């Protein structure tokens, strides 16, 4: 059966959790803390892709911060009514959080697409 576009996107954005075998005897709290929830040994190509994506995340994250931050400051200084001012700032903060979240999801999906060892 052909997988739908939405199902493909869902798997890409939220891959099924596969705990490492070495963490099998540990409780959830310990799995979170011990270093078995990620692949500790990356190949050079995997590290290159991961570092590039992380750099893009940093750059675009900073860009989002700059755009939302500037408009937040503008809204704060230009809107006279306190209610409207707070509403505008909250909306911009929410916009920043949501767009940052989407950026992180998109970059994680990008990493999975280009990773040399796709599962």
């Amino acid at each position, binding site marked *: 059966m052909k997988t739908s576009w939405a199902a493909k996107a869902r798997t890409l954005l939220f891959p099924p959790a596969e705990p490492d075998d070495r963490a099998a005897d540990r409780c959830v709290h310990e799995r979170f803390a011990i*270093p078995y929830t990620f692949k*500790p040994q990356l190949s050079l190509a995997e590290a290159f892709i*991961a*570092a590039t994506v992380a750099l893009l995340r*940093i750059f675009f994250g900073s*860009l989002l*911060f*700059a755009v939302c931050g*500037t408009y937040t*400051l503008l809204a704060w200084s230009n809107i006279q009514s306190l209610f409207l001012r707070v509403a505008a700032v909250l909306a911009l903060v929410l916009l920043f959080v949501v767009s940052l979240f989407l950026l992180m999801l998109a970059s994680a999906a990008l990493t999975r697409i280009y990773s040399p060892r796709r599962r």
Partner: protein
Amino acid sequence: MNLFGQTVSVGSGMFLLLALGMALSFEFVNGFHDTANAVATVIYTHSLKPMVAVVWSGCWNLIGVLTSSGAVAFGILALLPVELVLNVGSGAGFAMVFALLISAIIWNLGTWYLGLPASSSHTLIGAIMGVGLANSWASGAHEFGEGINWAKASEVGMSLLVSPIIGFGCSALLLLLFKLLIKRRELYEAPAKDQPPPLWIRGLLVLTCTGVSFAHGSNDGQKGMGLIMLILVGILPLTFAVDLATSQNSITDLASTTETISYQMDRHSPGVAMGGYQIAANELSAYLKTSGKVTERTFAAVGTKCREISDILSGKTSLSQLNADQRRILRSDLYLTSEALGKLIKQKKLDDPAEQKSAAKLKSNMDKVTKFIPVWVKVAVALALGLGTMIGWKRIVVTVGEKIGKEHLTYAQGASAELVAMATIMAADQLGLPVSTTHVLSSGVAGTMFANHSGLQMDTLRNLLLAWVLTLPVCVLLGAGIFSFGLNVLLRFGIK
């Protein structure tokens, strides 16, 4: 739009926030790397639960940054090309800041993903050298590497040699000493699952973890602060060029001391006249380059700049009485004069002890006006570093704890390696030793594995050594490449 009491365009505001975001990201990534120095041994000896150790270390990093003086932050800036530091508001100045941040972030991220504990200080120093090199090429320097601080380069080279020897040797010897003096078998065997060490070893390890975290925050954590201050001075000179909170007494004191020093400088340069303030500034800029030599004109230039400072400050009760141009000029003059006096003192060119003392006092007073860090900058950096510490610690900790030796870290091995790392940080601060804590701790773990006949994972050690040796040249290339690219873009778009 209004930012910190200064009106700037929307584009400038956006650019400022972008630069601040990048600078804080650099600190965040810095936190990923250096946590392992503090927590690896504590986690693998079960002295503290991983999350407790990481949050504890993050908090002490935060306290370290908040209580720091800022001396290290400005020490790093002293390595940058003088002309770019003075004109940081220009396109080239911003290209420099972005080149430094991006190259340091790239190398830190790359080595972190590979789980290699490389030195963040070497990374930043490499990027600074790269920018210096590219800048000297771009400005048509006569001598190769004129823009590079060779003293710092040789210090890094020495560190590459000294750190592994100290770490490996001292930790191995300490472990052997432990074995000789303390006859308790459980200290030298791999800990049973989740079994914490005896109370005194546990206390010792937690203490060293705390000390290393605090020292990291108060020392390494400052590097980003200096860059943030450069960005702020470049975009908002009216607010951040000089410390507007400087008291009236300090201003009066500075005005009178500069006048006194100007007479002293005149005695070193009889009959030498500077043809204006700009010529004096050029003379001092040339002297501050690594190849700069002291002449009579240097003393005359310091004297001229001191007189200019005294003129600007005379009759003023607050620095907020100065207009934008005066604040920018005052910052430039104070920076050039202070650095020149520092170099003259270091080179022992001031023979008279009284003259040395007054020059040192003037330098310190001048630095108070330009080398200040607002509390909100410290808080932002502390939070970024602390969060980075808490989030990205795992990769390097796994390398230090599992991939250097062939057996699990014992209590005594953890204590030996961490004690040596802590002692090294203290000794480096007191004696100015050119050592890297990251290198010392990793070599320390290797040393204890060797002394305990536990065996070493040679693949990891080879990768570690390769990363340590490559850090400087790669970062020089990255810094030079990104800075040149930035300059090229500015030229194409005609931005000055």
